[in-house]
């Protein structure tokens, strides 16, 4: 058991130690030092990124009687999650300044959520998966509720109710799967099931499991939370909410779809249909909206539905496109929220009309934001363009049946372009006297510029990253 720990759990153990450290320091440290809480988190995350190199990936390693595992797939997701965590921790400075003493607690919560995401990706049985989902969810409630005012509480409550219901649905499906196979372990379930014909109750259970998992991805049956929650949440927390849970959920969903849930024939079609419904809903909802947060909520929902559609059509090639799209999407999203984080604390607000003329006063920040939004819309020189082509080529490869889906998605991309344009166009209008020169912190500028640079670099030369994704997809 100790061997197990040292072979694959060192990064997560490191994070755990830093969580406890934060809590302890929070109890005893003098209030003046609250500014340094961020740095403890940053050190913890960087250390666990370093410790990722100690994890055994070749061949796959199963620890604690197959309950958790590691391979290059999990390692890639761990790396991306930790990187996002690093950027998000940098963004939280303005928020943590508002609650001085508690900033240790806040950072501990953020680290716990990241730890939960890591555990989700590496889980190899349903019990560990369930606990990890909850481990990620509980700190998220508090992170959402930690901002000032009433709205954050309401957002947290809605998020809690939705995820509690979806957990119930998820576990209901798991209970039937457990009944059929008398095991909770992915590997054993797959072995047992692949011997016989899939039954109706198996399909039912897998549909329930997927429905339970996709609520965090804001896909249709549980999608309505996304707008309310995004409205009420502070932007740095939102940068967390729109990236890390998505990464973690897709990390595990792809594994489930490849192994234990891959045997039913109905599941891909059901997922494809609900993701198409979500895409239509999200894209049409955003047309009338003027709030930048709501538009981004819809964009999240829409992007996730495209990815889900592809990940439902299981193949190795599709898996690599899914991973690549997720990587690109996450980086661009953090850049957008970094910019919104700057504007939020400059009292500009989230109505897109308030962004008027910002570009003319803040060239570099405005340009970085514009590039990221254009990337989300899927224009060239950004990684979004390559990701879009690569993702949609996967749908074509899956057969003629899905061509109508692809056509629908492509037309929805045009609708999406309309609302993405709404996000950036006011910036290029004539500057008025009121237009502010944004005072950004170094950390915010750093995040914005680094993420934009990554976006452009991947867009210019995606070959290495795609190769990595293909390698990972082959090794799942």
């Amino acid at each position, binding site marked *: 058991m100790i061997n197990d720990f040292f072979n694959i759990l060192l990064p997560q153990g490191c994070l755990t130690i830093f969580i406890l450290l934060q809590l302890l320091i929070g109890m005893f440290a003098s209030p003046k030092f609250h500014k340094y809480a961020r740095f403890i988190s940053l050190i913890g995350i960087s250390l666990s990124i370093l410790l990722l190199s100690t994890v055994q990936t070749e061949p796959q390693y199963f620890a604690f009687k197959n309950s958790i595992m590691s391979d290059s797939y999990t390692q890639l997701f761990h790396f991306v999650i930790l990187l996002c965590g690093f950027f998000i921790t940098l963004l939280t400075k303005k928020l943590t300044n508002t609650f001085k003493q508690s900033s240790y607690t806040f950072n501990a919560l953020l680290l716990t959520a990241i730890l939960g995401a890591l555990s989700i990706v590496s889980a190899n049985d349903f019990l560990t998966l369930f606990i990890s989902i*909850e481990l990620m969810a*509980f700190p998220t409630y508090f992170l959402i509720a930690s901002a000032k005012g009433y709205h954050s509480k309401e957002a947290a409550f809605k998020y809690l109710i939705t995820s*509690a219901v979806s957990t*119930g649905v998820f576990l*209901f499906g798991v*209970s039937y799967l457990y009944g059929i196979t*008398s*095991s909770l372990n992915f590997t054993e379930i797959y072995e047992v099931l692949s011997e016989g014909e899939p039954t109706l109750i198996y399909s039912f259970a897998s549909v329930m499991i997927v429905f339970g998992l996709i609520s965090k991805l804001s896909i249709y049956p549980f999608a309505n939370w996304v707008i309310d929650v995004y*409205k009420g949440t502070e932007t740095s927390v939102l940068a967390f909410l729109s990236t890390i849970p998505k990464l973690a959920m897709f990390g595990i969903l792809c594994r489930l779809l490849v192994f234990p849930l891959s045997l039913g024939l109905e599941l891909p079609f059901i997922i494809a249909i609900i993701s198409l419904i979500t895409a239509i809903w999200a894209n049409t909802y955003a047309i009338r909206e003027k709030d930048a947060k709501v538009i981004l909520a819809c964009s999240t929902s829409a992007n996730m539905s495209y990815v889900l559609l592809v990940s439902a059509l299981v193949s190795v090639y599709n898996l690599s496109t899914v991973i690549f799209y997720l990587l690109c999407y996450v980086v661009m999203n953090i850049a957008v929220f970094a910019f919104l984080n700057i504007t939020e604390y400059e009292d500009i607000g989230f109505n897109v009309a308030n962004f008027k003329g910002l570009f003319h006063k803040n060239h570099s920040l405005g340009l970085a934001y514009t590039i990221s939004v254009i990337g989300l819309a899927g224009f060239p020189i950004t990684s979004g363009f390559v990701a879009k082509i690569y993702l949609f080529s996967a749908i074509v490869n899956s057969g003629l049946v899905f061509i109508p889906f692809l056509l629908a998605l492509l037309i929805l991309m045009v609708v999406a372009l309309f609302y993405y344009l709404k996000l950036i166009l006011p910036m290029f209008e004539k500057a008025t006297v009121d237009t502010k020169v944004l005072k950004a912190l170094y950390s915010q500028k750093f995040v914005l510029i680094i993420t934009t640079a990554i976006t452009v670099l991947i867009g210019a030369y995606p070959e290495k990253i795609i190769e990595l994704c293909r390698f990972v997809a082959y090794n799942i």
Partner: protein
Amino acid sequence: MTEITLYHYLFVGLFVFVLGFAGSIVCKNIIKVLICIEFMLTGVNINFATFAKYCGGSSADGFVMILFYTAIGAIELAVALYIFYFMHCKKQSDNIEKYGEL
């Protein structure tokens, strides 16, 4: 009376689950919504216990799952009530429609 089989238990679990699911969507009273979420949990737990007994093999993972889910459900309820309390300080109502500011 016939012998009690797996299916009897499963139907009860299913019924409680669906009751909780429907209630959590339909109910207007927030406390009631929370109770309904606990009902969903109960239904799932009955399912797990049934399966652990009738086709669980020797490991009885289902019972462990019940234990964990019970704990998680209790914590969830406490957190939900706590956040609800803060919301209530502002609104003074327990009707879910009053909380639609966002």
